[in-house]
């Protein structure tokens, strides 16, 4: 009866606004939710209902919701859902969700933001500012802000108080940071930065906190496109926690607040200071090592030198001993050889001299013989008498006068005769 009644009372589907307090996707493919409504003070719950998305619907609706909002359906979200009212005897009152409008959840602003992001992505420019090289020393800082904004004061204060001696140069480029005028005003400030011709390392866009709606100016397509094309890295600190604007997305680096932006810059420079210190430390350590090593070498040098000298001396004494013994051996060998040679020679010599003696003896005998044959006795014996006058052998008739007494010697005696006449040979 109740079911029939309800069906009669709510025959169509209805669009209802509610907050999701529970959301469970069951393995069967259905999705079970609990919807609530709070009182205007946003705390006390004044209505609560179970809701179901059947699997056939959920299979389409789930992915669609996620693609449109960038987030899956979950507790805490405000939704606008098309429902039919049902009653089951066992399970009671239940809303069956047929459709959900994601733009309600996101809000018109958020939908637009997604659209711009998608467009920048399609154009291939969304990461172009991010792709710029972050400077090693972000010291020359162009600030885009409203001069009166608390955020700007925070930034400057942080930089002055906590820089720890690091040097920063800041120049403010004032811009309107709220409302419709802000996007063109920020673009103008960016143009101004380029027009100065000063070599800035980084552009900081900062703003104090504010209502969520105030962030809409940072979701302008023109401004964000301009930022992607800007030649200097942009650091954004727009002063909000939860919402993420398109400007934050396209900036080189995005932090939550102006104070955080200053901290980020100080950090960047501190890292370099640290890098310098550690390089200096490494240098000192290395130099120390090299010096220590050389000192050690110097200290051990005398000892090494001594042992080297000793080694050398030892080697030399061994060598000289070897030479000496070799020399002795050689001498002995030489002596032996030469004595053998001498013996041999003397034998040879004695043999030779004997032969010579023999030869001489024989020659002498020969000589004796021939001398004997010339002796007067021999001649006399042969029958040749010697004529002698006054004791001298007469060889010519001239040597003896007529009347002189000539002695004729024969082997057995002497004849004496007187010369009566001389005849001289004609030939003479």
């Amino acid at each position, binding site marked *: 009866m109740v079911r029939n009644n309800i069906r009669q009372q709510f025959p169509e589907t209805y669009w209802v606004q509610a907050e999701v307090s529970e959301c469970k996707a069951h393995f069967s493919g259905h999705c079970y939710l609990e919807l609530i409504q709070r009182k205007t003070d946003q705390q006390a719950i004044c209505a609560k209902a179970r809701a179901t998305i059947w699997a056939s619907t959920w299979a389409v609706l789930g992915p669609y919701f996620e693609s449109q909002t960038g987030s899956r359906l979950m507790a805490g979200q405000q939704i606008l859902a098309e429902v039919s009212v049902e009653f089951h005897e066992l399970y009671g009152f239940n809303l069956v969700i047929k459709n959900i409008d994601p733009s309600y959840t996101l809000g018109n602003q958020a939908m637009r933001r997604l659209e711009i992001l998608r467009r920048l992505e399609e154009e291939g420019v969304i990461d172009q500012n991010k792709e710029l090289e972050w400077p*090693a020393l972000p010291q020359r800082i162009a600030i885009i802000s409203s001069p009166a904004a608390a955020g700007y004061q925070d930034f400057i204060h942080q930089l002055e108080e906590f820089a720890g001696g690091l040097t920063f140069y*800041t*120049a403010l480029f004032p811009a309107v940071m709220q409302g419709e005028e802000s996007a063109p005003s920020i673009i103008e400030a960016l143009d101004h930065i380029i027009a100065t011709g000063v070599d800035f390392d980084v552009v900081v866009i900062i703003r104090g906190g504010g209502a969520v709606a105030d962030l809409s100016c940072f979701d302008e397509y023109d401004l964000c496109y301009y930022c992607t094309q800007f030649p200097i890295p942009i650091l954004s600190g727009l002063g909000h926690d939860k919402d993420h604007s398109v400007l934050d997305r396209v900036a080189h680096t995005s932090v939550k607040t102006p104070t955080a932006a200053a901290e980020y810059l100080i950090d960047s*420079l501190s890292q370099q*200071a640290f890098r310098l210190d550690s*390089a200096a430390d490494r*240098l000192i350590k*290395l130099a120390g090592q*090299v*010096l220590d090593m050389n000192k050690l070498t110097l200290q051990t040098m005398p000892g090494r030198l001594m042992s080297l000298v000793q080694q050398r001396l030892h080697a030399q004494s061994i060598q000289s001993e070897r030479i000496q013994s070799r020399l002795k051996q050689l001498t002995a060998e030489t002596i032996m050889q030469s004595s053998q040679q001498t013996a041999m020679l003397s034998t040879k010599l004695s043999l030779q001299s004997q032969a010579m003696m023999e030869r001489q003896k024989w020659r002498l005998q020969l000589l004796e013989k021939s001398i004997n044959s010339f002796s007067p006795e021999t001649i006399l014996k042969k029958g040749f008498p010697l004529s002698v006058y006054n004791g001298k052998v007469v060889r010519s008739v001239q040597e003896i006068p007529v009347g002189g007494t000539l002695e004729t010697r024969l082997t057995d005696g002497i004849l004496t005769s007187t010369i009566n006449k001389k005849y001289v040979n004609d030939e003479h």
Partner: protein
Amino acid sequence: MSTEKFSYNKAMQEVEQILAELEKNNPDVDEMSRRVKRAVELLQACKKKLFETDEEIKHVFEQLNAQ
């Protein structure tokens, strides 16, 4: 990139290179002292950039802020 930024990066690159070489090779004392001297010069120049105010740049920024 400005020449000043470039020189900082270049200086640090050179310092790193010197360190790497000193660590890798075994330099003699003369070579080492020459290298260390160069590295110290570079480090001092870098440190100056970080911690000392360049009056010229300061002046330019003051003028920008006065506009």
